C-alpha cells in the first residue's frame, strides 16, 4: 500500500469535458467520473432534470500518489471552480498497488 492524496471534485456537466482535458494535460495517473448527480450549493439547486446539463453535476474522483502533482491539480482547477462553481476536497488515503 502506498500513501496517496484523494481528490474529489463536483462540477457542472458542461464543464466535464474541459476538466478532463485539463487533467489529461497535467498527466494525472487517472480519474473516474460519475455522471448525472444532483445537489445544492451557493448557486441554488441542481436537480439534474434539465436537458441542457446546466443544472446537472458530475463528480470526479482522482487517486494521486504524487503529492506535488495533487497540489498542482488543485491550483489549476481553482479558477474553473471560481468561474463555474462547484467544490473540491482533498484527503489522505492508501493506494493499493497492483
Amino acid at each position, binding site marked *: 500500500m502506498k500513501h496517496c492524496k484523494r481528490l474529489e471534485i463536483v462540477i457542472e456537466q*458542461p464543464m466535464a469535458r474541459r476538466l478532463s482535458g485539463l487533467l489529461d494535460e497535467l498527466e494525472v495517473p487517472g480519474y473516474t467520473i460519475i455522471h*448525472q448527480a444532483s445537489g445544492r450549493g*451557493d448557486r*441554488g439547486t441542481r436537480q439534474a*432534470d*434539465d436537458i*441542457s446539463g*446546466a443544472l446537472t453535476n458530475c463528480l470526479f474522483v482522482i487517486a494521486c500518489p504524487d503529492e506535488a502533482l495533487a497540489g498542482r491539480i488543485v491550483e489549476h482547477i481553482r479558477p474553473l471552480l471560481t*468561474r*463555474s462553481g462547484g467544490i473540491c476536497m482533498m484527503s489522505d488515503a492508501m493506494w493499493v498497488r497492483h
Partner: protein
Amino acid sequence: MADRPGHLSDHVESLFLTNLSSPPLLFFFLGVAAALLRSDLEIPAQIAKFLSLYLLFAIGFKGGVSLAESGFDASVVGTLVCAVALASVIPVYGYLLLRRRLGAADAAAIAATYGSISAVTFVTATSYLDASSISWAGHLVAAMALMEAPAIIIGLMLYQMRQRAAADGAAAGAVEWRELGRESLLNGSVFLILGSLAIGWITGSRGMSQISPLIGPPFVGVLCLFLLDMGIVAARRLGDLRPGRGRAAAPLAFLVGFAVGFPLLNAALAATAAWMLGLPEGDALLLTILGASASYIAVPAALRLALPEANPSIYLTMSLAITFPFNILLGIPLYHQVVRALAGL
C-alpha cells in the same frame, strides 16, 4: 365551440380554446400540477433527453424531405437571411434594454437566450398547424437551426465590448472564442436538426416512406410525454426565481415582465418581417414563433462554458418557466391572429 359564421371574437376564442385543450398542452398542465402539488411523478432524465432527440430527429427529417420537394428558390433564401438577421438584431436591442437593470453578464446571457430559439416551441407550433391542416414549408426548419448560433456569438461580443470598455478585462474571464464557436455551432441539438434535415433532403420521399412510421403518427403522442416532463421541470424552476434562492438578486417583477413582454416585441418584429416577405400563413406563424421563442437547451449549455459569470437560475428560469409556457399556451394562437390580421391588410 359555437362557430357562428365569421364573428371575429368567437373565432379568436375558439383558436385559444382548441390550442389549450389539445392533448400536448393538457399534459403540460398535468406536469405543472404534479410539480406544484409536489407529486413524485417524474420522467427519468435519460428518457427526457431521448424524447427531445426524437422530436429534433423527426422535425429535422420532415423539414429536409419537404425542402427536397419544394426546392431552393429566392423566397427560401430570403426567409433564411431574414431569420439570421432576426437572431442577430434581437440580442442587440435586448442587451441594451436589459443593461439598464442588470449586470453585463446576466444582460448578455438573457439577450443571447432570447435571440436564439426553442425547438420544442417550434415543434408544438407545427403540430398546432397540422391539427388545423395549415401547411408549412420545410425550410423553416433550416431557419430554426440557423438562428441558434448567431445569438450566442453576438450576445458575447456585446459582453466583451463592455468588459474592454470598463478596462477591467482581467477580472472578467476572457471569452474562449474558439471554444464558444465550436460549442454554439456543434451543439448536439443544432447538429441533429441540421443532420436530419440534410438526410431528409438527400433521401426525399423514398427515405420518408421508411422513417415515417416512427416519426409520423406517433409524433403527437411523444410530444405529450415530453411536454408532461417540461411542465414538471418548468414548474420546479419557478421556485428558483424568488430572490431568496441562489443569487437572483435582480428585481423579480422586471424579469417576469421581460420574459413575457420581450417575446411579444420580437413576435411583432418577426411577423412584420414575414409580412414584408409575403410568407404564407403557416410559414409566417413559424417565423414569428422563432422570433418570440427563447432557448433553454442549446444556449444555456454554451453560456455555462463561455459566460459562467451569468447566473443560470435567471436566464434558464425565465426562458423555461415563463417564456416557454407563455408561448405554447397563449403565444401560438395570439401570433396566429397577428399573422392573419397582417395578411388581411
